């Protein structure tokens, strides 16, 4: 898929995130806008997405609270419909604030931080054992670096030389109650992960071209790969960007209308 097509998918995803959040009066908007490009690029390289083939690639949203970005990404991939997205957080819907495996394209139900990456490591090991070329793409939040199980996963993946595992770290510097450097400083994490035996790159996380280049480079590595994606929580919406409270807040009508204007393609470049 051409990068221009990915960029237009990002537009659909951004729009859909805002629509879902506003309609449902739910939060986690900032987190979802932070990973739009990562999710779109990750889904675009996931072979067999939504199929039952065991040899398919796996996509794991370890930061499950950004589920609306994933749902919108699955819409762009043709696995969900606009009508599906309209059921987001409606009673009886499968589209909740954290993803469920009853939804096509979702292989593991996440929401408890530090668990998705452990599953991703197991999925990558399974693909290695099956020797079918299966790849695993995992989206990790920087707050998950706080979790011990995340570090356990880094060590295991390195020890097992899981070069079919690619973790995209949403490095937006924020977590629920504060900035990461004020809560638990993870500034040294990328270097530490590299020292544990990972192929570590850094890129502009809202730049589709940069992301796809990094993904391409990762595919040539003989080590598990981490792409440290420099992102902004609430990217594209001025009153949300790098504001801690937008981890939780729902939008008012004027805020929604303002956000919809701001995330138009010409404005987020």
């Amino acid at each position: 898929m051409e990068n221009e097509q990915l960029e237009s998918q990002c537009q659909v995803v951004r729009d859909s995130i805002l629509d879902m959040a506003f309609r449902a009066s739910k939060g986690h908007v900032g987190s979802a806008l932070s990973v739009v490009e990562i999710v779109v690029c990750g889904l675009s390289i996931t072979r067999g997405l939504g199929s039952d083939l065991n040899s398919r690639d796996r996509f794991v949203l370890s930061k499950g609270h950004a589920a609306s970005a994933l749902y919108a990404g699955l819409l762009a991939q043709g696995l969900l419909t606009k009508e599906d997205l309209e059921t987001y957080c409606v009673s009886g819907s499968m589209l909740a604030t954290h993803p469920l495996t009853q939804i096509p394209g979702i292989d593991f139900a996440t929401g408890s931080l530090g668990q998705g990456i452990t599953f991703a490591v197991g999925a990558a090991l399974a693909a290695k054992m099956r020797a079918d070329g299966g790849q695993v793409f995992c989206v990790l939040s920087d707050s998950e670096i706080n979790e011990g199980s995340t570090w356990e996963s880094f060590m295991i993946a390195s020890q097992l030389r899981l070069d079919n595992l690619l973790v995209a770290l949403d490095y937006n510097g924020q977590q629920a109650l504060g900035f990461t450097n004020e809560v638990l400083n993870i500034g040294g994490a990328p270097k530490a992960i590299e020292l544990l035996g990972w192929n570590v790159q850094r890129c502009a996380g809202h730049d589709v071209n940069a992301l796809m280049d990094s993904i391409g480079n990762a595919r040539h590595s003989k080590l598990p790969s981490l792409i440290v994606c420099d992102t902004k929580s609430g990217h594209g919406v001025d009153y949300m960007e790098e504001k801690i409270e937008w981890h939780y807040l729902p939008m008012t009508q004027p805020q929604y209308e303002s956000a919809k204007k701001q995330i138009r393609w010409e404005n987020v470049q």
Partner: protein
Amino acid sequence: MRAEFLDGLAELAHNDPRVVLITADLGFGSIEVFAEQHPTRFFNLGVTEQAIVGVATGLAEGGYLPYCYSIASFSIARTFEFLRNGPIAHRFPVVVVGIGPGLDYSFDGLTHFALEDIGLVGGQPETTIIAPVDGASARRFAANGIDHAGLTYFRLARNVPPSQTEHFLARSIDTSCLVLGFGDSSAKSIEISSKLSTHGIAASVRMVDILNEGSLLAIVETLIKSQVRVLVTVENHYVSGGFGTMIADALMAQNWRGSLVKWGVEKLPVGPLGDSKFVIEKYCTPVSTILDRVLSSVEILR
């Protein structure tokens, strides 16, 4: 028991290519058999109990049948959320092998005691706990493999002599008082039965080695049909929340009219430690207390 289990698992792995064994850096002297016979399906992933469960979940989703091996307390209490959100929620076949349940690691103290593991996973939907009564039984269970999705938890005692007791379903129960032991509790169950006998109460002894929704229904049905009126449950676990509690819940749901007396770990085992006999006497229900409660129940039910 662990050696017999791992021998049986190595045998199973010859016939089932899905079987994978992951250890959290434990099993010295027992695990080598599997590692040598199946080197491509054996992984020591270090002291990472939580992550191992997540890795096993990913393996199970990818078509494998992973067994996670560690000391029982680290296998369940530490990993519980990963178990619940992983194999239990997704109905992926993951097997946890926990060594040394209850007070088994006597001198090692509280950190090594698995006293609430049955309580944690026993009530989880579609979960099975298997607690072999002795080594031979453990080997059979391992070699037979697993045939259901979701979590299976093997609760393996360390040093248990060959069981002299009968399986719950071995034959009909012909006494109105029954001592019902779970897993590695056959010796204590016999001791309790003998004590009751010396006070004129005939009590059969039966052992349960599988705990799940199906086995609970079968147990309750048999107890009611056999007209058991006084039931003594015996388990190497806290008396609250474990085997006895699950049996009680199931019995009450069927309007059972009888009296239940539970033997198990009564107190927080923080304090003096010793050999198995010492810690049991120190922290478990005194057999004399069981006798008093049974005598009282018999009197009430008369």
